[in-house]
Structures are given as structure tokens and as C-alpha cells.
């Protein structure tokens, strides 16, 4: 138990340190000094996939696998644009509500009917891609609210933007939640020790 736990912390920490070191050393390869914009840009890239990775990670810790995140992401974006033409906040709220509903329906099938997560989320992924395609007519949809688009990416303290700050905040709050008693992580642990393993494709088999 103890060495496994330590490995669980050391490997991601080492990966993070490695990435930061590589980032700091990039001037050696490019011959150009690092600027605050480089840091801002790197954080924007992090924000691009950070929330998606959190979503997949959450399901993996619960011993399942969500293949539908990219579908939910696409539909969420479409809805935020369609519903947010008059008010960006309204679009955001509708998109988040739809995303939560999409996840809850899949979660209900997986938890209550005990259908394996891979085929459920795969089918949902196909359906959601179709839905995103149907909403947009296969074309890219432009968000006309320029003020909101600019606000999301405007620089704060040189290196941050609302986009990257939201992702960082979500990562940090998720980190503290998952350590709390009754969290997904602990539920998955007790489930793993209590009963026989469920599906052969469960995401995170430590041993």
C-alpha cells in the first residue's frame, strides 16, 4: 500500500518537474529568451485540455473510462454559442447544464444498470458528435459576442487569463475534493477491496 501510494505521487510530480525544466531550457534550443508571453501561451495550452483531462481522470479514478468527453465538449461549445448570442453568461449556463445532464444520464446507466462504461460512453460519443454536427449543420459556428471572446483570453498579471485561471482553480479544488472522505477516489478504493472487480476494462488497476 505504502510504496504504491508514494509512486502515485512521485510519478506525476516528476512528470511536472520534467516539463517545467524542459520549458525553462527551451532557450538553449531556440536561442531566444523566454518571455512572459511564452508562459501565458503555455498556460493557454494547458487550459485547452486541462478541464477535459480532469473529466477523464475523474472517471478513471472511479475505475471507469469516459470516451464521450470530446463529444460533450463539442456539443457544449455549440450550445454555448447558439444560446449565448444575446448573453454569454446564459450560453455558459445552458451549456454547463446540458453537459451535466449528458454526464448524469451516462452515469445513471453505468451506476444503476451497471452497464460497462466503455460501450455506453462510446455510443454517447457517436451520438454527441452527430448532435454537434446537426446543431451546426456541419459548418463552424461563429460566436458574435466579441467582448466575451476577448475577455476569456485577456491577460491577468502577465501570464494568466480567465480561461487558464478557471482551469487551475478547477484542478486545485478537484485535488482537495478527491482527498476528502467519501470522495470518488475513496469510494473506488473501498469498492475495489469489497467486491470482485467489475469490468475487465476498468481504467486504473494499480496492482
Amino acid at each position, binding site marked *: 500500500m505504502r510504496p504504491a501510494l508514494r509512486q502515485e505521487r512521485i510519478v506525476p510530480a516528476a512528470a511536472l518537474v520534467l516539463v517545467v525544466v524542459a520549458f525553462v531550457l527551451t532557450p538553449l534550443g531556440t536561442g531566444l529568451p523566454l518571455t512572459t508571453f511564452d508562459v501565458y501561451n503555455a498556460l493557454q495550452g494547458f487550459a485547452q485540455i486541462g478541464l477535459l483531462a480532469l473529466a477523464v481522470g475523474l472517471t478513471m479514478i472511479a475505475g471507469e*473510462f469516459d*470516451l464521450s468527453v470530446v463529444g460533450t465538449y463539442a456539443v457544449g461549445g455549440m450550445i454555448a454559442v447558439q444560446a449565448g448570442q444575446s448573453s454569454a453568461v446564459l450560453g455558459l449556463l445552458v451549456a454547463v447544464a446540458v453537459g451535466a445532464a449528458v454526464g448524469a444520464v451516462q452515469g445513471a*446507466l453505468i451506476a444503476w*444498470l*451497471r*452497464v*460497462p462504461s*466503455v*460501450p*455506453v460512453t*462510446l*455510443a*454517447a*460519443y*457517436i*451520438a*454527441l*458528435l*452527430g*448532435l*454537434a*454536427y*446537426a*446543431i*451546426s*449543420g*456541419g459548418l463552424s459556428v461563429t460566436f458574435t459576442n466579441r467582448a466575451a471572446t476577448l475577455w476569456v483570453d485577456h491577460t491577468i498579471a502577465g501570464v494568466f487569463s480567465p480561461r487558464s485561471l478557471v482551469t487551475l482553480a478547477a484542478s486545485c479544488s478537484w485535488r482537495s475534493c478527491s482527498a476528502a472522505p467519501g470522495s470518488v477516489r475513496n469510494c473506488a478504493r473501498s469498492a475495489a477491496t469489497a467486491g470482485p472487480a467489475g*469490468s*475487465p*476494462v476498468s*481504467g486504473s*488497476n494499480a496492482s
Partner: protein
Amino acid sequence: MMSLLASPPAAAARVRRARPGSLAVALAVLVVVLLPVAVTTERFLTLGNARAILASAALVGITAIGATLVMIAGSAVSMAASQTATVVAMVFLATLDQGLLVATLLALLGGVVLTAVQGLAVGYWEANPIVLTIAAGFAIGGGAIWFSGGTPVSAASGGYDVLNATPLGLPLAVYVLLVLAVLAEWILRRTTAGRQLYLVGENRAAARAAGLPVGRVTVVAWAFFGLCLAVTGVFLAAFNTSATTNLAGTLTLDAIAAVLVGGTAIAGGKGSALRTLGGAVLISVISDVLLLRGYSTGVQILVKGILVLAVVVLVHVRGRR
């Protein structure tokens, strides 16, 4: 291994009975719903449309037949199908100047080796197939970009036209699909290797305890899948006459959808190649009806996803009883 200790698992006898009753009921319901809609659709009941349905099911179907064996063997799904078929198509086109036979053999070899290696990691080292194949998909897709330099790979010479032949008005790929489906079904039902596939998929630990070569059985399933992927890639290459990095499109998802609609259980141990064939044709028929009735591509994909979800839930709920 320790074959002295373990008696043949009792599961062996019932594994191959896959509850045809409940699925037949589900199929009947579907036909009752689909049939009136289909026959009242203009131009549905024409020979040309029947050909179009089979032709559009052919390439996805060939890949799905291979994916069926992987799923039955308990290796769930491969997320690297599109990338593998694309690389195979590029190899085929680039080596065509060596002659059609050499190019085809090299392409088949490439597909089998690339995929069997993944089967090796799953079968012997218990790698999680989904995580592994997502990673492999990135690596193979990167290989495709490297191989092609990011530009379309065009045929090194002609000679592939024979693959685009349409004997009796049907593309050659349709006949290959039928042959592969029958071959896969025969392997599954009538050979020792096929029976072992079901046993390994049903209960890996028990299969290992019974002395079955779990690793080898898994690799054989993946190698067959690689063969099917390579055949798909060769037909894709011949049909498009050049290969770009996104040649195979949504092949990965479409093939898995066909396997799941055919009623094969994701956990393994149950399923059949002929039912996958049925799944591929069913998806093709539904897309065709929606297309003829003027629905958009998005709606076709949406309905496909809902169909897969419905079948998955149904198969699971029925399977638990």
C-alpha cells in the same frame, strides 16, 4: 501450465450459447419499426439502393469482423483502427511499383504485425487495451505523418484497378466481407482456437488456470484483427487512389458500433461474426433510410449513436438474467 490441477471449466458448455431468443425478440421489434419506414421510403426498394447499402457496409464491416474476435477474446476494443488502416493504405500505395501481389502482401504483413504487437502487450502483460490502443493510435498516426511527410501518398504505379472491380454489380470488398465473416464464424465455432477465444474472454483467470495459452490466444485474435484492418486499408487505398493521414476517417468508431449493434458483449466471451455482419448492414440500412428521407449527416450519426446505446443497454440487461 498447471493443467493437472484444473478441470475443464464448466462454463465451456454454456459459453457458446449466446441467448438467441432475447436477441431475436429485439431484432423482431426493430424490423417491425424499421420495415414500414423503410419500404415507404422512396427509392428504398431498388436494386441500386441495395447495392449502395452493401457497398457502404463493406469496409466498416471487414474491420468490424476482426474487432469482433478482439472483443470476444476479452480485449474490449482497439482505438487505433483508423490509424492502422491509413498506414497500411500508404504502404500499399508506396510499394505498388513492386507489383500488386507484393504490395498487398507487404500491406497485410504491416497490418498484422502492428496490431499483433498490441495484442502481445494485452495478452502477455495485461495492458489495458483501451489505454494502450489510444497510445498506439497516436504513435501509428505519427508514423503515418512521418511516412507521408504530411502530404498525400499517391500510387507508385497502377495495377490496383482489379480491387475496384464490381462482379455482378457489387464491389469486390462486399465479397471479401462475406468470405471473412464466414471464415471468422467458422474459426469461432468449429476450431479449437475459436473455442479458446470464448473461454479466455469469458474468464481469463479460469482460462489460465485451465492451462489455456491465454497470451497466444489473445495475440491470434489481434493478428486476425490486424489482417482485417489491412484488407480494409488496401481497399481504401485502391478506392481513393491516394492516401492522406485522415483517409480512414471514423473507421474506429464505426467498426466498434457495428460490433456492439451485433450484440457482442464488451466484457468478452459472447458474440458472433455473423451478428456483427448483421450489425454493419443494419447501421448501413438505417443511415440509408435517413439519407433517402433527406436527413442531414449529423442526424444520421446521432441516430447511429442512439441505436448503439440502446443495443448496449439491452444486451447488458438481458445478459444479466
